[in-house]
Structure formats: structure tokens, C-alpha cells
């Protein structure tokens, strides 16, 4: 997992979103079936799509990382929705994200709290 970040939101906000890229070097697709974080009561997978200026968002039971490929969770696409933030986030701290795989394994990553996607700072 790489480039993990969580969007900084106002202190009163109950939800935010986590983004990252998951690479799968294996010969088989890997299915992500759940997520969690140390800063939120619940984490869910959400998939968004924008069509004709309309954004739709649906909770997804699972998302797949293709064999020898990668899955990007990025603004406007899919994200981990972190719900019920336990405390206000502050810029430049890191939070822990965990992905649950269908095979029972877990992936963990430290995600930076940022206002903007990496590479768009100050813009």
C-alpha cells in the first residue's frame, strides 16, 4: 500500500475519507472486504462515480485488486469512509488504516492527514 492519506475535515465533522493505492504483485486478484481505523468507530468502502455532473456514491461490500495490478482509492473514485471520528484530526499527524482481505489477512498502513491530495499542496 502506498500514498495513503486521510482528508483533514473541520473538528465537528463526523466523517472523512481515506485514500491509498494497493498493489498486488500476485497471480491472483485480491479482494478487500472491509476496513477499519484507529480514529473512527467504523470504516466502509465506498465507490463513487460522476456522470453528467452528478456524483453518485454507493457502499461496496468489497473491491478487487487485480492480479499483477493495482487499485487506486482516490478522490472522485473509491475511498474508505471513516465514520464516527473519535477525535478531531490535525494536519500532518498520521492515522492507522487497516484493510481486511477475503483470505483473512490484514494490511495496515500509516496515512498522513492532509488538506489536499499529495502533489496538490498549496493549489
Amino acid at each position, binding site marked *: 500500500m502506498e500514498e495513503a492519506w486521510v*482528508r483533514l*475535515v*473541520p*473538528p*465537528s*465533522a*463526523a*466523517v*472523512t*475519507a481515506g485514500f491509498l493505492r494497493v498493489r498486488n504483485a500476485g497471480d491472483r486478484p485480491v479482494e478487500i472486504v472491509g476496513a477499519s481505523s484507529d480514529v473512527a*468507530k*467504523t470504516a*466502509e468502502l*465506498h465507490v*463513487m462515480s*460522476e456522470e453528467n*455532473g*452528478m*456524483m*453518485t*456514491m*454507493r*457502499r461496496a461490500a468489497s473491491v478487487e485488486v487485480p492480479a499483477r495490478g493495482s487499485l487506486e482509492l482516490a*478522490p*472522485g473514485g473509491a*475511498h474508505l*469512509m471513516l*465514520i*464516527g471520528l473519535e477525535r478531531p484530526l490535525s494536519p500532518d499527524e498520521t492515522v492507522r488504516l487497516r484493510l481486511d482481505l477475503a483470505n483473512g489477512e490484514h494490511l495496515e498502513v500509516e496515512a498522513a492527514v492532509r*488538506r*489536499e491530495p499529495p502533489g496538490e499542496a*498549496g*493549489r
Partner: protein
Amino acid sequence: MTRLLYGAALAGSLVLAGCGPDLAGELTELPIGGELGLATTDGSTFRFADHREDVELLYFGYTTCPDACPTALSRAAAVTRTLRERGGPELADRLLVLLATIDPARDSPDKLAEYLTFFGVNGLGLVGDEEEIAAAARRYGATYERVESGSAAGALFDHTTHMYLIDRRGRVRRLVRSDDPIERVADWVAYLIEEG
């Protein structure tokens, strides 16, 4: 003196027309919009007519929105920063960002105000009851739909992602799409401020 002013204005418009994109052509009046009939955070009714000096970016959104709304407000903040770099606070402060909530049950006026302040824009939150908000959205051709997705976050909304760029006379001049370049949006806003 009149001739001198006219000459200066003409030179200015030639400069505007002569370099870069055809901003006037990109900012034709659209047959949507009008007064919103929604209240601001302090309880008074917002009227474009009271903001003759300002150009507005209007967005229909909600604060429990995890991605599209923060992205839109971050973009509005980036436009504000770009205007500040170009013309200082005198220019940047004349862009007013309006966030009309589509989720009045959860978005209090205070919450909207905090949200706008957090993103660093000169903003106003707009509230109303469900019918008032639906009527305002209809006037702008904005659509939204409540989705009970079974999420722990409660109700979520599918909704229009573009912002409405509104001139100093309260007319919609452009739908700002979520992928329009920030520099170009700043060009549009500056043009409409200058236009009067």
C-alpha cells in the same frame, strides 16, 4: 476627461480580448437561477441584490459528504488563493462562496459556517426547509437524491457536482465543472468582478 476614461476602458478591453481565451464567449448568461429564497447563517434571507460588488460560486452540498463536497470547497479555496496572488485581498474578498445545504436535518447554520471557515473561503452557508431547498435547486437545475445505503454515516446524497458562477447582477454565467482548471475559474471570476 471622459474621452480619456473611455480610451483607458477601451485599451483595457482590448487587452482582455487580445490575449488568451475568449472569456466573454465562455460567460454567456444561462437561462437558470435567480434569487434562492434561502436564509444565511444569521437568519436573514440571502439576496444577490444585496451583493452587487460580489461574484458568487454557488454549490449545493452537505457537510457529511466525504469526498465531492470537500473537493469542491478545496477548489473554491484554491480559486480564492489564486485571486489573492493576482490582486490581493481586495480582489479575493469579492468572491463569495455560497454553500446551500441539501441536508437541512443535519446541517445547522453554525455547522455550515464552521465548514466554510475551515476551507478558508469568504463564504456563506444557506439554509431552508426541505421544500425551500428543493425549490432553489430546481431553479438552478441542480439535482440531489437522498440514498439510504445502509452506511453507518446515515443518509448520503447523490448530487450535482458543478458550481454555479454568478455575476454581480445575480445572473448565472457558467457551470463550473469539477475538472475546470483553477486558473481558468479565477480568470472567469476576475472577469466578472471587472465587468460590473
